């Protein structure tokens, strides 16, 4: 085993990521040019911090997309010669180079880190998005109607929030419960919300234009049913999409834990905004309640919601890390960052750098989301 110089490691990593740099550059420059027409997203470019945050987030998203091109090796492939190696180790005979060293089983930490971003960046945004749709669909009526609906929904939300999250996950992923219908049932319920949401959005808006409405509804229904079947029941007729049962579990758990918080935010915002004159104006022209909630109120609370979504994706990332660290849900050899930290932490005395790739990746992504949320909050207030 031999080592290449630190600066060579650095240069090599930069070179490996050329596709990512190129894409970031193209996205940044093109967005910057037309930033005035991009609304809130365009305003990020007014702030240096915002650009930094966006760069970090974009970096990891692009890493996830191009993981196969970037990573030199398969994340599960083992090179026993290079096990527990330090940064920049290479095997003279085979020429295999581990840029960030190898783990206890001789897997390349760099490749694992890049591939790990895939798990995090598919589950975190998608689960947060669905949690938002759940929170919005329930929070708007709770805030708008108040009274009994609000009392019941808020009680349930408080009940879930009062329960320790980690304990909840433990319960959800223990084999005893995993084998029952509970996780699939929960996921089935939560994945229903996007379809319900879209239906309500379209029905309330286009009731006066039946032809357009029926076209939109059938399209929604087709796509919705296909996604629903393939994700929840793993029964995709085209075999394009699938979700592992344990991934589905994590989805359900994350949505379950974060939707009550979103529900409460939406409810509060709705209560504030329902007293505005334009809501009264909509009522006086006889608009339906769902039109008022989804078309009159929702667009006006999007600012705080976008900010919250950014922060919440960060939290979910932490949550996924924690789950991985405790070995909950995901498969033991999974290359997600939480699991990686857990797998490497025991060897920290032998090779101190071994835990760094996963921990730095995790914290930089969360930092990126937090910076972005900060700037979005600032900019949305400026208008």
């Amino acid at each position, binding site marked *: 085993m031999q080592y290449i110089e630190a600066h060579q490691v650095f240069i090599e990593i930069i070179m490996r990521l050329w596709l990512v740099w190129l894409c970031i550059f193209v996205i940044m420059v093109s967005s910057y040019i037309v930033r005035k027409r991009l609304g809130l997203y365009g305003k990020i470019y007014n702030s240096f911090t915002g650009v930094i945050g966006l760069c970090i987030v974009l970096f990891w998203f692009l890493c996830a997309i191009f993981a196969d091109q970037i990573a030199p090796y398969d994340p599960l492939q083992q090179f026993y010669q290079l096990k527990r190696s330090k940064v920049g180790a290479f095997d003279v005979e085979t020429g295999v180079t581990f840029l960030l060293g190898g783990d206890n089983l001789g897997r390349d930490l760099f490749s694992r880190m890049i591939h790990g971003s895939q798990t995090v960046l598919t589950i975190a945004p998608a689960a947060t998005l669905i949690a938002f749709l759940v929170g919005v669909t329930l929070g708007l009526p709770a805030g708008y109607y108040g009274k009994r609906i609000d009392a019941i929904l808020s009680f349930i939300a408080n009940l879930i929030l009062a329960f320790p999250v980690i304990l909840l996950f433990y319960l959800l992923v223990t084999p005893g419960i995993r084998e029952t219908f509970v996780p699939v049932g929960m996921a089935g319920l939560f994945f229903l919300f996007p379809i319900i949401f879209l239906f309500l959005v379209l029905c309330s808006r286009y009731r*006066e234009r039946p032809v357009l409405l029926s076209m939109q509804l059938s399209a929604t229904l087709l796509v919705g049913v296909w996604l629903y079947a393939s994700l929840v029941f793993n029964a995709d007729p085209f075999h394009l999409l699938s979700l592992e049962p344990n991934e589905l579990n994590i989805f359900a758990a994350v949505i379950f834990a974060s939707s009550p918080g979103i529900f409460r935010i939406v409810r509060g915002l709705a209560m504030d905004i329902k007293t505005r004159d*334009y809501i*009264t104006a*909509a009522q*006086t022209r*006889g608009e*339906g309640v769902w039109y008022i909630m989804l078309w009159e109120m929702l*667009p006006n609370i999007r600012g705080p919601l976008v900010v919250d979504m950014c922060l919440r994706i960060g939290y979910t990332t932490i949550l996924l890390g924690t789950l991985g660290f405790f070995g909950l849900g995901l498969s033991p050899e999974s290359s997600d960052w939480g699991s990686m930290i857990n797998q490497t932490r025991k060897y920290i005395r032998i090779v101190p750098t071994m835990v760094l790739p996963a921990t730095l990746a995790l914290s930089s992504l969360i930092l990126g989301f937090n910076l972005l949320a900060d700037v979005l909050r600032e900019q949305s207030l400026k208008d």
Partner: protein
Amino acid sequence: MTEPLLEIENLYISFDTQKQEIPAVIDFSCKIMPGEVLGLVGESGCGKSTVALAIMQYLGKNGYIKSGTIKFKGKNLNTLSLHELRKIRGSEIAMIYQEPMASLNPTMRVGEQLTEVLRLHEVGITKQDAYLRVLDMLVSVKLPDPKRIMHTYPHQLSGGQQQRIGIAMALLGNPDLLIMDEPTTSLDVTVEAGVIQLVKELSKKFGNSILFISHNLGLVLEICQKISVMYSSRVIEQGSVRQIFNSMRHPYTRGLFNSLPLPSFNKNKRQLVSIPGQLPLPNERPQGCAFSNRCTYYVQGTCDKEMAMIDLGEGHMTHCTRVKEIDWSEETSLNKKDEGVEIGNVILNLSNLKKYYHVVNSDILGSKKTKTIKANEDISFDVREAETVAIVGESGCGKSTLAKMLLGLEQPTHGSIHFNGQEIANIPVSLRDTETIKAIQMIFQNPFDTLNPSHTVGSQIIRTLEKFNVGNTHKDRRAHMFELLDLVKLPSDFENRMPRQLSGGQKQRIGIARAFAAQPKILVADEPVSALDVSVQAAITELLINIQNTYRTTMIFISHDLSIVKYLSDKIVVMYLGYVVEQGTAEQVFSPPYHPYTEALLSAVPIADTSVKKRHIVLENDIPSAIDPPSGCPFQTRCHRKKHVLNNLCEKEVPPIRSLNGKHNIRCHLADEILESMEPVIGFNTK
């Protein structure tokens, strides 16, 4: 001649923004002599508050004085250190702000806040002395029961009382100069009249000078000796009250006066003339005269050059270079030819309408106390086709609740509303058929709130059309939307504008266009112009009248502003604490006999006309809360004529409705002789 107390010379103030430097005040000069009251008048955004802040040296982070001097008692305030400024602020110059609640500390008792002022400014004053001085001051600002008030928190006081505390606080430091920035704008008219009366008395008593900032010309006339009129960061005319009101020499000042509804006006006889165009943005000001792009006397080559103030003698200055060429005696207000519309049959009938709200207070032991708020009590009146019925009253009188019941947003506790013979009171808006919904539409008060900020103007109007089944295709509706934009005199490229890109007046026009989408029979207008600047008010009022004349729309006009009500209504309903205290035609209500409340209300409205003579009636106390209404007549706690009724009847019984002559109804215990001997509140000086 004595030295002026405050002398500002050639003051330029700018604000730095991310993009550029924005001049907020340009070349401002004024002098305030000891004991003098100077009025600073202008529409919103003209820079009048910036001047006040500059005097206090409070311009904030991005504002700065570019050049010019502010001399106070001979000292240049711009060069003083922070320490020296602190000595002056509060003890020599004090400021009273628009929002009384925001200028008092909500976590401190009023007494503590007031004694704090003395202990800060007068070293070595004992607690006891300070307490007594504050008590004295509270008596001077005419607060009832000052000892109790010392122990209250600001939120326990009404708006009028809070503002009196603010005035007391400012006066405690014994300042030589008092700056009042729209001190009464957030108060009700009758409360405002009391505060203004107080300020007048106090300035006489303590002899301090006042810089009075206001957008209300009527108020300025009542309180000031000199006036500076500001427009787009500049003083465009200054002089004595008499000079400005009777011989104004700037087209903008004249435009302002033409757009005011004065008591001698009426919608069918004389038209309000608004100033065309709108206030230019600070970075889009025209060259030379700032008013040139809206001025009818604009001459190229003269008005677009830099100009100086022209002295007309006796302290009267104008910023119009063409002052000598314009014929100032020319009649600029328009007389109307048409007689208005003929009033039709009864279209809406309200009888014995009551609305109670129940508030349940349950405590920890589970015992429930239900309190009833009587928002509307026994309201009956008729509305005829093409008629304008004004509902007048101050905050909390139940006028907005009445509007909500008409629209079906609330259902009455008792009583009925008949629209074209059909009972609609108990049908909520969600169950009303489209025809009824179309027929009764509403215009809202706050222009910044009536339009949904997330949708374009065009899509909001088209949505309304869609909802009302106007037109068959999207194309039809779009064409109709352009017609509506044209009706409210807005260009068709407004279709794709977002509400935030519009000015207040333009938003209100869109609000009218939207309400008018399906030609409603009845338009309920809830204070449609009260949040707008005077010149814009005139334009919106005229627009409403034009629409009414064209389409024979019935208008229910809710307002607290009697001058605009007098101008445009045929019939007036005066409300107080949920009761209709007086109703009749405009003429009947505005001439004696009055209900004592109407009498006070009429006297309280500031009128910007030097030829008007008013009887001054200042009401004591503030409006009682609707949760805890007084016994008997709702107005008895403030009534100035209560002493004329025997046996304390006012406190015991709610007066019955009395019909005076024909349709003129009044709810009062006063004897006929007293009612008949009433004199008009508003009279004219015969010159």
